[in-house]
């Protein structure tokens, strides 16, 4: 699963290369790239095990001779296509991209086709690329539900790196989740660089040694131990500490006392200025 911020196509191609290296037969249905661009980087002795069905030039049948159209995306046609070219063991089916198909085929039909292909027996594994930001969350969720493994890629902190969030469902029902940072080399090999550390701040290089600002001055800014002690004992004037509170509440014998005798002029009642109302 990828987004506009980071394309998952290189990773998809590296999966294809890995499958070919494992001597598997790969059938590639490509909607978004031409066959030449797809073969770029996938040349080699194993290339004959790679069968590309290019739906790039005419996916909707607008011309007279389409190679593969989106309307052919159903279990029967795909199985027929696979059986035509290879008769050995089950193949790995790679689709680029699932988003293209989802734009033209209803989600329910799409999911049913994928399920039929999986149970059909002609296909051993299906690897698909989905552009998560092109669909509503519900559709993305349904497709992910069908998958046994979902890898969501995003750009990493550094230029060449990318982050992958992996969710894997095993047959026993256990769900494993992991996050890794990886780099794809030019030869399409994937190098995993370890777990992603999202809580750590971005490290801009080795930490600089903390400089001591009081060194190398013509005047003395340092404190001796006695001075430091005196400084810590000092209570600040405007800090309302516990000692200050008790000092104010219970005034000592030497502090001044205020004696107040109510004066007649002070007792001014707004509602009764002449003080003659019998209230």
């Amino acid at each position, binding site marked *: 699963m990828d987004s506009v911020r980071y*394309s998952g196509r290189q990773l998809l191609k590296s999966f294809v290369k890995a499958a070919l290296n494992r001597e598997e037969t790969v059938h590639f249905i490509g909607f978004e790239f031409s066959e030449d661009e797809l073969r770029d980087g996938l040349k080699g002795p194993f290339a004959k095990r790679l069968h590309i069905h290019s739906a790039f030039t005419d*996916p909707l049948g607008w011309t007279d001779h389409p190679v593969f159209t989106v309307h052919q995306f159903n279990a029967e046609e795909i199985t027929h296509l696979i059986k035509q070219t290879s008769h050995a063991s089950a193949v790995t089916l790679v689709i680029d991209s699932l988003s293209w198909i989802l734009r033209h085929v209803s989600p329910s039909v799409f999911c049913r086709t994928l399920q039929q292909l999986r149970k059909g027996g002609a296909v051993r594994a299906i690897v698909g690329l989905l552009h998560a930001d092109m669909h509503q969350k519900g559709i993305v969720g349904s497709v992910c539900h069908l998958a046994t493994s979902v890898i969501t890629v995003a750009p990493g902190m550094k230029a060449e790196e990318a982050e992958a969030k992996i969710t894997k469902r095993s047959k026993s029902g256990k769900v494993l989740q992991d996050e890794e940072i990886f780099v794809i080399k030019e030869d399409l090999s994937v190098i995993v660089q370890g777990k992603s550390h999202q809580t750590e701040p971005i490290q801009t290089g080795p930490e600089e040694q903390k400089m001591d600002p009081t060194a190398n001055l013509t005047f003395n800014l340092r404190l001796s131990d006695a001075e430091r002690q005196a400084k810590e004992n000092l209570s600040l004037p405007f800090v309302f500490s516990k000692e200050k509170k008790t000092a104010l509440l219970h005034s000592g014998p030497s502090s001044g006392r205020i004696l107040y005798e109510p004066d007649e002029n002070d007792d001014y009642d707004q509602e009764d200025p002449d003080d003659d109302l019998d209230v």
Partner: protein
Amino acid sequence: MQWCNRVNTGLFIASPAMYTELNSILNTSPESFTKGDFILLSDKQSDASFLIHHFLSFYLRAKCKVCFLAMVQSFSHYSTVSQRLGVSLAQAKEKGQLVFLEGLQESLSILIPQDEHTGSQAMNFLRDPKLGLQDLYEFVSSKVKRSCGGEAESEEWGPPVLLVDDLSVLLTLGVTVGAVLDFSHYCQATICSKLQGNMVMLVRCDQEEDEGDNESPACLLKGLTHQSSLTLDVQGLPTGYCRDIHGQVEVCWQRRQGDGQNTQNKLFQYKVHDKGASFFARGTSSAVL
């Protein structure tokens, strides 16, 4: 890069350097540019049409056969601006270098049919938006393929280029996002991949993104971004209006370059002049320094 006097068919007038900063940012020039590119221009609460004018004059200077689908402005508008940039659209059209589809004019003849003239087939989607843009694609394909036919005059021109201004207006005319994406896919397959030409399309998104809306320009923009090789996203300054800096442009290379390098995204600010636009790194506008 200085544009010197060019001795040629008289199509170009000697002009001072314009858009040279953009050319150096994109690492291109009319003499050498990457072929098979799909350049996506987008803007949000800003106006990226100055980039359309730039690419129009760029590809005409590069002697490419240009097919321009102008949906939002008249021919005279583009002609006037191009004149200031040193390129004459009327001459290009006469010589057959420029194929200009004036959307506004064509749509009138479909919406208000007069006499027998029923309008070009290209704008058939106005009759029934549900049909999609296949006719428009056929129109583009026929105009562009002719340049690669066996005719003598076609040898003069370089690879074909398609410019569209702009795609989001098709959404307002009732065409679905899916149909527009199919159209751009087919154009890319024919022009960029098969004929090794280039494509420049403009999409305008003014609204805020709505998660549930599948037919918004933002959705179209995402789909097109996945297809494109290079995107130039024009936005207003986040701090508001400024007289000396008209906005910022984010340049993102979507597909890896041929040698596998993942070019970094770049952000620039720009100012549009009468005869071009200048681009500079953030904070280095001449008004500020």
